[in-house]
């Protein structure tokens, strides 16, 4: 009988192990949260928290380079303050940062945009009650199976590649490396001129929802920071416009009044000089905008926290400000130009012109040159220009992707 129970236990362990393996392979955890657990404990100085508006804006690499700090970006897509609160609780189990910057776009959502996004946080390989509580806020008990990625995922067996590749990459990936972007997710793509125009005109979505319940979690967030001697800042990066079904929960929060009441400093990124180049879409900045935002936020943090800023590097990063870009053509001959504000800065440019397909390999032309190039495309279709720009006085390489189309009518 004892032997039977031992066999049963061993079998259960094997089954649980395989189940865990499949869960890990099907995990939806974002890279920021995956890498968070690889960080040495209690080493972070600054953490940027919030939804995609946060983790696609602030680059820890740039801020750390300027301020000699150790910072990190945490967040999930479309999260609101409820999720941020649970993330903060998790953060504090492993780190004791000096400052937390909470991006205020997070406060503008009455609910998470899509509940399944919470798994970008929940799936980061830790079973704990904190995560379970968050899960139960959005999914009822009879959908508890959602807590496990492999149960939540209905594998598309017509195209199992996405699952099998995820499984392979999980099995063979190197587990020790931390992505140097430290939670930042790059928006390489630059908004097209027509979408930029449209974004500026579109009125914001009116929502029937209320943010009132979320105030409880904001208060808890603030209290938790105070209890842990963390200096809390609100960071603000104003979007162009907020509209569409995806933003039905958008309820602008009066963070200024709240911040005044609670003595919270607001660090606002000045986007008045941002141009189309600096946006990825109506609510997110592009890599260009991210550099400018990161530089500004570093200056504000330096001011607020009394940290020394590397002036030389500040000047180098500020050089990545461009006044305009253009793509024009005559037939299949195209010209691309991008104009830095300070034309004395020595930049090197490298361009890749590719077809805009999933692998971008169909047609590729590699060119080096100045801020202006001429090139031809072989046939009508959608293309991209991938531009790598480096200030020769800095190590930072800025990569931007500019979509364009060669239309068949133009050939006539």
């Amino acid at each position, binding site marked *: *009988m004892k032997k*039977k*129970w031992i*066999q*049963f236990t061993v*079998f259960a362990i*094997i*089954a649980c192990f*395989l*189940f865990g393996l*499949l869960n890990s392979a099907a995990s939806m955890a974002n890279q920021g949260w995956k890498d968070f657990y690889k960080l040495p404990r209690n080493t972070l100085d600054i953490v940027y928290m919030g939804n995609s508006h946060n983790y696609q804006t602030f680059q820890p690499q740039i801020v750390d380079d300027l301020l000699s700090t150790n910072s990190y970006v945490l967040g999930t897509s479309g999260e609101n303050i409820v999720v941020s609160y649970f993330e903060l609780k998790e953060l504090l189990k492993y780190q004791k940062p000096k400052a937390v910057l909470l991006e205020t776009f997070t406060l503008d959502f009455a609910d998470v945009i899509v509940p399944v996004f919470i798994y970008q946080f929940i799936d980061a390989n830790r079973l704990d009650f904190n995560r379970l509580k968050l899960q139960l806020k959005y999914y*009822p*008990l*009879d*959908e*508890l*199976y959602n807590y*496990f990625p*492999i*149960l*939540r*995922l*209905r*594998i*598309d*067996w*017509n195209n199992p590649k996405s699952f099998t590749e995820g499984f392979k990459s999980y099995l063979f990936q190197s587990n020790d490396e931390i992505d140097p972007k430290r939670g930042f997710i790059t928006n390489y793509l630059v908004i097209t001129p027509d979408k930029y125009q449209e974004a500026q005109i579109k009125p914001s979505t009116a929502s029937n929802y209320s943010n009132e319940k979320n105030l409880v979690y904001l208060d808890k967030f603030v209290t938790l920071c105070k209890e842990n001697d963390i200096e809390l800042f609100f960071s603000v990066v104003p979007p162009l416009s907020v509209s569409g079904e995806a933003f039905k929960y958008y309820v602008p929060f009066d963070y200024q009044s709240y911040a005044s009441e609670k003595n919270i400093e607001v660090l606002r990124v000045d986007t008045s000089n941002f141009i189309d180049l600096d946006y990825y879409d109506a609510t997110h900045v592009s890599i260009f905008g991210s550099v400018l935002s990161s530089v500004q936020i570093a200056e504000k943090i330096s001011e607020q926290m009394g940290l020394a800023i590397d002036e030389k590097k500040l000047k180098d990063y500020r050089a990545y400000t461009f006044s305009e870009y253009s793509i024009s053509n005559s037939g299949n001959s195209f010209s691309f130009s991008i104009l830095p504000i300070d034309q004395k800065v020595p930049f090197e440019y490298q361009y890749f012109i590719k077809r805009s397909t999933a692998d971008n390999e169909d047609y590729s032309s590699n060119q080096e040159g100045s801020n202006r190039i001429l090139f031809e495309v072989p046939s009508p279709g959608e293309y991209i220009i991938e531009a790598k720009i480096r200030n020769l006085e800095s190590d930072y390489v800025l990569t931007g992707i500019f979509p364009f189309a060669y239309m068949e009518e133009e050939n006539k």
Partner: protein
Amino acid sequence: MSGEFLCQSSSVLNKLACFSIRDENDVKFYDKDIPIKGRVFSMQLSTFIFLIFLLIVFLIHSLLPKKVRWVWLLIASYLFCLYADWRFGIVLLIDTIISYFMGMLIFKAEQRKKKKAYLLSGILLALSFLFAFKYFNFSINVFEDILRVIGIQKDFPAFKWLLPLGLSFYTFQIISYLLDIYNGVIQAEKNIGKYALYLAFFPKLISGPIERADHLIEQFSNPKPFEYQRFVAALLRIFWGFFKKLVIADRLGVLVGTVFNNPTDFYAPQTIVAVLSFSLQIYIDFSAYCDIAIGAASLFGIDLVENFNMPYLAQSVTEFWRRWHISLTNWLRDYIFIPLNFAARRKNAKIWLPINIVIVFLVSGIWHGANYTFIIWGLLHGIYQALEGITQKWRKKLDKRFSHGISGFVRKTIEVLITFLLVCFAWIFFRANNIHVAATVIGRIVTLSGSLHAVAWDMSVLGLTPADYVILIAAIMIFTVFEIINQKHNLFFRSQSWLLPVRWLVYLILIFAVILFGYFGTFTASDFIYAGF
């Protein structure tokens, strides 16, 4: 019916009647006459949360002294019921208390007349609950239809409420309990707790099997002692049920739903595939539920009756009903058919026997659901069996005369196929939401609509992908082979004597087949079809 919703009135009774609806998704139950949209958060047996619940109940059950384990099962059963909605628990409790005392009164009454009076009262009270929750709205519908036929247009307000969990099943258990006491088959159960557990026992609460008191109550006091082999067999049976439900039945359900929800969009070949698929789906779905229920009960040393015996191998509709939903068939036989035949014993049996058969299956149809389609389905089965009985001698003569040279196997196969087709035809009414849909489906098949066009044979528009079809075919083949072998050799037990690596591999394949191929994930596991009754 009018759009007035009594739930919005301030009347306490109406508030009690209006069970909570937590979101605006369509009702997933199979109860077609409920004119509301809503979703009840019940712990369906095919769900992950049920497994967690079962694990917790089992662990606590194992730690408790034997004498009080049945108490824990009673608590767990009520928690199971209350999880869906606390009002379901109230209904169950009231029904339990009333029927318990009626049983005691029947048992203690000395005069036959009094016994009968208590019996009738008890049955009427139990049926009144069932009528109120399940048939009241339908009755109003029927009344409105009758008025419409005679030229009076009148809409009556509808009660917006859901069917309490398992009501149809435990009502039949109450009736069988009271009748068994009246007939002297059993004594009234003195322990109200054990009687309550007889009705509420959670593995069988939602969709049976319909247990008899003499089979179940005794087991609560003397459950089978724990045996490792039976424990493993129970777990295997549960996972086999999950496999059937989540890999096969839910997948088939997509195809069936696609066609039956919009029958005019499809041609004869597609419709025939949907009807055949439904025949498979309902069998696999319901038998899967029973596997999980029987396996779960077995964990606690309780045996529930088997409910299926490869029904689609039946050579007649009569035999089909000896193999399909066996506990219901036995109940109908013992408590309606036999008494009806007894009452008609002095009359012309040749006439009354087929009539009684039709009555029994009319009751069965009504019991399954409050809709004209269920009534037609029940009537069809009654007519099939009545005709089988009437034509039995004549068919035997024909058989003798024309079956020379035809092997027994071929003859049996033909009989099985004919039975299957008759049953499939009846399933059309069972599945269709209303008579119009059923008529459309039948019309499509009978006229062979579009059969000459290639588009009519396009099965890719039925809601399943090519990979789904491959998985389905493979899973159905595995299911078929398993069921055939399991008939003779109980594989849940026999497999435990296989070589360790072999049996572990098979068990792991079973578990992970459910996880990887189960049709759930971004969707919740669809409710068992029979949960709507």
